[in-house]
């Protein structure tokens, strides 16, 4: 009985030590998020782009997709470059929405909407690892910064999925 208990405890510890690196180790060393550009006709303030940049960095840190999230234009060690990502993109469409339409018609009509495209490239050889398309819709009465939060969250989620699919052994 005592041997069994000891074996069980040892087993649990072994499982823990095996599981720990799996949770912690990230495949990529650094990620650099750049300020997104806005396409012609997109009426968004520079403050929105700034806030989205901060949110994207915050979400990347939370997702633990990479070991370190570096700021825009920061130097990365040459040895780390093959395992480093650069995320850049464009806000392609922004619709302010309509409060009246949203309240009277509903069913998604008059919603505030934002579309953006992003490219994730490897720092060393600029190879495109994935292309992301994000479309976020929120209530027109909400602050546009909430939309930035949602967009950043969705972008990181899709990036994580795309990178995981791309690295799966065939």
């Amino acid at each position, binding site marked *: 009985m005592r041997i069994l208990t000891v074996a069980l405890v040892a087993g649990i510890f072994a499982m823990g030590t095996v599981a720990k690196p799996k949770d912690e180790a990230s495949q990529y060393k650094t990620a650099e998020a750049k300020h997104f550009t806005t396409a012609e006709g997109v009426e968004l303030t520079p*403050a929105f782009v*700034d*806030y989205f940049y*901060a949110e994207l960095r915050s979400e990347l840190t939370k997702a633990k997709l990479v070991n370190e999230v570096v700021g*825009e234009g920061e*130097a990365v060690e040459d040895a780390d470059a093959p395992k480093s990502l650069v995320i850049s993109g464009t806000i392609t469409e922004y619709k302010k929405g309509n409060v009246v339409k949203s309240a009277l018609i509903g069913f998604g009509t008059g919603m505030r909407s934002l579309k953006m495209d992003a490219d994730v490239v490897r720092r060393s050889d600029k190879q495109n690892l994935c292309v992301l398309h994000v479309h976020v819709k929120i209530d027109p009465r909400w602050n546009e*910064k909430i939309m930035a939060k949602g967009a950043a969250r969705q972008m990181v989620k899709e990036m994580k999925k795309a990178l995981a699919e791309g690295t799966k052994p065939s």
Partner: protein
Amino acid sequence: MPLRGSLRSTTTILVSAGLTWMACPQAKADEPKPKPENTISIQLGEPVPPQKFEHPLKFWIADVTDRSGNPQPMMVMKERGGVFLDKQPTAIVKEAIEQSLKAANLLAPDAGSANLVLRVYLFHFGLAAGSGLDFFGKVEFSTMVKNTKTGESQEVKAAGTSIAKGAVRKKNMQKNVEENIEEALHDATRNFVRGTQLKEAVAALSKGTEVVPAGAPSATETAKPPSR
């Protein structure tokens, strides 16, 4: 009747005067004042290790100018009794950059012995407009890097951002704001000292000139012959 009318108007005047008098101190109380309870201290914490330059260099920070246009630079937040800084943002930024350069032995002891002189223009320090659910900390500055020998200069921009959770209790709010600005400051300092812009500026400014520090090398530094 005229007596009653004049009495009524006198009462109205008295009531309105009384209400105005009562409202005045309240309006004054709305303007927050710095007290030890609502003052935070922003520090860099761990110095940021700067990038390695091709040649040994010494920097000197000449001055930090506030270009934010904020009439109250020490007030970080106006709501809920206000949150104030214990020092001017320019002093905090100067200290942060100096601390990081000094840790890597890149800070000259005086302006005369420096290869490159930095003039920092601070554009934003503190909280910026966020979603309302959290605190959005932002530190943004631009630096003119000047070669003391040639007189040429180059601009290097740096920015740091941080998003922290909002809080209901004032004590937690103050703590979150402090941590948030500290993180933004750390981020901006890192963006400056590890940025490719600084690397390019240093490379461009030291082109064709000797970049050997004018000051004597410190005890920890190994003396290197000047590159010819």
